C-alpha cells in the first residue's frame, strides 16, 4: 500500500496520521489528518476550484462517494446531501471522492 502513496515527504510519518483519498481507480493520495481536505488535495497538485476557503462560497463543492468528514467550520454554502466542502473539513476516514462534478 505504502508504495502507492504518491508523496515521498509524508512517508517518514506513521500511517496513523494519514487517511487515503481515492480519486479514481488509479489515483490514491495521502491525506493528513490535521490539514483541511482542500490543503491535502493541493499538496498533491490536484486542481480544486476554490474561492473563500471558509465554507460560504461553495466553489469547492465536491461529491463524496464513500467515507466521512468532520467540519471545522459550519458550511454555509449550499451542498447536496452527497456533497462536501473540502475547504473547511478534515477526513475522518479513508475517502472516495469524485472531483469536477
Amino acid at each position, binding site marked *: 500500500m505504502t508504495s502507492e502513496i504518491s508523496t515521498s515527504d509524508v512517508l517518514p510519518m506513521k500511517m496513523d496520521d494519514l487517511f487515503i483519498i481515492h480519486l479514481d481507480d488509479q489515483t490514491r493520495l495521502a491525506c493528513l489528518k490535521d490539514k483541511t481536505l482542500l490543503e491535502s488535495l493541493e499538496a498533491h497538485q490536484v486542481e480544486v476550484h476554490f474561492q473563500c476557503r471558509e465554507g*460560504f462560497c461553495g466553489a469547492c*463543492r465536491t461529491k463524496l462517494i464513500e467515507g466521512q468528514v468532520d467540519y471545522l467550520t459550519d458550511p454555509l454554502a*449550499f451542498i447536496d446531501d452527497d456533497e462536501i466542502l473540502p475547504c473547511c473539513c478534515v477526513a475522518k476516514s479513508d475517502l472516495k471522492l469524485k472531483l469536477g462534478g
Partner: protein
Amino acid sequence: MKYTTFNQQSTNPLVEPMFFGNPVNVARYDQQKHQIFEKLIEKQISFFWRPEEVDVSKDRVDFQKLSEPEKHIFISNLKYQTLLDSVQGRSPNIAFLPIVSLPELETWVETWSFFETIHSRSYTHILRNLFADPSAVFEDIVLNEEIKRRATDISKYYDDLIFATQVWQTQGEGVHLVDGQTVTINQRELKKKLFLCMNSVNALEAIRFYVSFACTFAFAERELMEGNSKIIRLIARDEALHLSSTQHILNLWAKGKDDPEMASIAEECHDEARAIFMNAVEQEKQWATYLFQHGSMIGLNKDILCQYVEFIANHRMAAIGLDTPFEVKSNPLPWMNNYLNSDNVQVAPQESEISSYLVGQIDSEVSGDDFGDFDL
C-alpha cells in the same frame, strides 16, 4: 391578502413556507425552520465594514497614469456595479418582505439589502476620490445604452413580482383592471413570478459582478488602483454570501423541502429559469466586448474574460441543479482566487479576537486570583 406589519393571529413559523404563508409577527430567532438563514445573518454581520476604512487616496495618482481604454474599463465597471447595487439595495426589501413568512428569512433579506447599501456608498467613496465632481459618472448610468439594457433585464422580474403582489394585497385574487390593463392574480401565478425573480437575482449575484471584479483585480495584479481593489474584495466576499442564500432558497424549493407547490413550479419553469441564467451569461460577455472596445488592458482581454464567465457559470448553474453547458474545465484566471479568498481579506486582530478591544464584549473567564483582594 392584506399585509399587516404585526399579524395578531397566532402562527407557527416552524411550519410556514418561506414565502406566501402568514405574514411574520414576532421577530424571534431562538428557533428556525431553515437554520441556514440565521447562520448567514451572523456571518454577514461579522463581515461588517465601512468604505471610509479603506484608504483610496493613492488611486487618484494611479488613475491619471491609466491609458484611455483602461480608464474606460475602470469607470464603466464602476457605473455598472453602481447600477447593480442600486437595484440590490432596495429590491429584495420591496419585493420579498411583503410576502415573506419566516422571521429568520425576513431578517436575512434586510441584512442582505443593508450590505448592498454599504456597497453603493463605497462607489461614491471611490469616485469622490477620483473626481472633484463625480456627477457626470453617476448621471451617465441612466443614459448609457449598454447599462440601460442590463438594467431592464435586472429590474424586470422584480417589478413584475412587486406589481402582482401589490394588486394581490389590495384587491385579492381574480381578474382586475389596472390602468386599462387586465391583470390575472392567483396564488400560482404569484409564486411563478417569485420563482423567476429569485432565479434572476441568483444569476445577478452569481455572474453579473464577476466581469467587473476580474478587471479590478487585474489592475491590482499590476499594483494599480489597490485601494479600489481592497474595497471590491470586501464587496466580493459579501456577494458570495448573498449568492449562497439565493442558491439555498432555490434548492429548498426544488427539493421539496419548503412549499410543495414551489417544487412543481421549479419543474414547470425549469427552461425559463435556465434561459434567465444563459441570458445573464450572454449579457456579461457583451459587456466584456463593450469594455474592451477601445483596447485591452495588460493581463486581460475579451476572450479570456468570456472564458472566465463561462467557467463560473458552469459552477453556479450546477449549484442550482442546472446543466453545465460550457466547455471550460479549468480556471482561465487562477489569480482571481487570491482576491476572492477570504483569508486574504485583512482583519485587524483587535476587531476579531482580543475581547478588550471590542465594545461591549465581556470576558467571562474568572480565575480565583480575581478575588484575591476581596474582603467581607
